């Protein structure tokens, strides 16, 4: 599903070149739950941006579902993000003026899904994450845990092949953090492919499939 070979990413900040990733090889199979653990500045966010098609590697090959993203233009990448990838962010990244329902509906709007199907999908996914009674609340009327559920629902609504979660519990208290982790585990058990990035070594508790990244390289 994800096949990364010899990925290298260099940022040019003025005159200094920063090598964020070097020689990264990574394979993720369908139905995997992979945790990427690394301290801040280790390059794990860069890795996630590349996996999520928000960024392109400086060199190396990245194939998503057998398609090499190197040759794709911005529009195709946008479509890929819309249909193949579901993002979950540490700071939720919900649209503040939109209700729970509208936030979850948004990827379907971009995909051009018709009204009836949109309603069915959004309702069923909100049921699944346990937010059917919060449909018309704005993000600022929700708790952190609830916000992250909205974000997860939004990530799932277009039935993506991969869910990319970047520190999904980072802004949550222990209790809601555990609940969100449990939700991810449940989704994984249903057959979703999940890649989670975290600096928290405790995440190992939930999965036996993890890699550690430091200084832009993957440790064994």
């Amino acid at each position: 599903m994800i096949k990364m070979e010899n990925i290298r990413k260099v940022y040019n900040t003025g005159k200094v070149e920063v090598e964020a990733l070097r020689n990264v090889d990574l394979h993720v199979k369908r139905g995997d739950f992979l945790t990427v653990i690394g301290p801040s500045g280790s390059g794990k966010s860069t890795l996630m941006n590349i996996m999520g098609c928000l960024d392109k590697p400086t060199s190396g090959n990245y194939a998503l579902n057998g398609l090499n993203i190197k040759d794709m233009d911005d529009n195709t990448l946008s479509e890929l993000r819309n249909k193949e990838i579901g993002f979950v962010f540490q700071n939720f990244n919900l649209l503040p003026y939109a209700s729970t329902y509208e936030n979850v509906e948004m990827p379907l709007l971009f995909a051009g899904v018709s009204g009836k199907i949109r309603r069915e999908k959004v309702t069923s996914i909100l049921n699944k994450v346990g937010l059917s009674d919060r449909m018309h609340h704005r993000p600022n009327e929700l708790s952190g845990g609830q916000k992250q559920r909205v974000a997860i629902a939004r990530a799932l609504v277009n039935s993506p092949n991969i869910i990319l979660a970047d520190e999904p519990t980072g802004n949550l208290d222990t209790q809601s953090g555990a609940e969100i982790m449990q939700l991810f585990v449940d989704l994984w058990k249903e057959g979703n492919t999940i890649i989670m990035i975290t600096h928290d070594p405790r995440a190992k508790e939930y999965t036996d499939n993890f890699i550690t990244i430091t200084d832009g390289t993957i440790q064994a």
Partner: protein
Amino acid sequence: MAETINNIFKTLLLVKLFIRELKKERRKIFLTIAGIAWGTLTIILLLSFGQGLTTQMLRGQKGLGDNIVILYGGQTSIEYKGLPQGRRIRLMEEDCDLLKNSIPEIDRIAGEYDAWGITYKYGETVVNERVRGVSSVGYEDMRSQFPQPGGRFLNENDMLARRRVIFMGCDLKKKLMGDVDAVGKTVLLNNIPFTVVGVMQKKMQMGMYGGPDAEAAVMPASTFRGIFSDVYVDRIIYQVNDIDKSKYVNQQVRRVLARKYRYHPDDNNALNYWDVIEGSKQTRKAFTGITIFLGVIGAMTLIIASIGVANIMYITVKKRTREIGIKRAIGAKRSLIKIQFIIEALLIDLTGGFIGGAVAYTIIRLVESIPQDNADFGKNMAMQILSNPEFSWTIAISTCVILGLVGLLSGFFPARKAAAIDPIKALHYE
């Protein structure tokens, strides 16, 4: 086909989304819309009043005559065939027929006789005024002297039979007879009884000789000659069938009369012209200039307002950077982000334009509805000129086009900026 429908459907959905997002910036947007509305109001009012001004000026000139040339006899300035210079040329009524028969471009022609200080008497009321004798039918069209309902202008039979009939100016009639229906009544002119056949409709007259037509009366030239024994006409008035030929016709007139009165055909002083056609052409040009000037002022106002819109949109781009990042991350294409800003700008501009247009339209209709038959008001020409704005589709459409362009421009640059935002940076933008 199905795809087209789907696309339209999708676009509508997105517009709905944009409106939803616009709503949260209500206050700023309200001010922006007000700016655009003000600009539109200004441009429409300026153009409409400018248009009205032009029409009124032209109508005022028509009050003197509809595409006419007024011809006076002059003095020769060149010796010719033994005749000295400084000889006076006086026109006669028969010259009308001569000119009409020699110059096919002349549509209508009439001689005019003036008599001053005539005593008009009706009942116990006495008024001293001019009277004019006119020699032909069609005079009313040339000089815009149209009868009020119930009456008529002088006709051919009046002329042939030397009838003692008069057609009265509306102000003279009012002074002499008050509100009485004048048609058919007998009025004494220097103690000679005349029957009133018609009263002139009120008109706006900006050019005049002798005085306004509203304050005098006209009678058949034949009757006039019988009473006053005039040999020479005071002037000849003719109407040309093609306004672009007036200069040529004037030359022809000079040639034809040169043969009869034996002055040098190139003698410019033998005859005097008052070419109303040339005058109205000049007026039209001057007012086209004024209209353009007013339009430019209006457009400038609108551009200032649109800079306001662009400014707001720029600020919005900055404020929404993170939202743009989020949308890009969940799959919004660059074009969508761009379209959103352009559509928002267009919505603001068109809403403002619509409001401004509606207010302008209302104001124009209100001004138009001010009654103008009110005596004091009607005499006040400045008010009459100003109080006739014209709302035309040309103005409405050109304003729409300017608004549309302004809207596109004020949305385009912010939109380009928004679409260029890097989603990764935007996601971390606070």
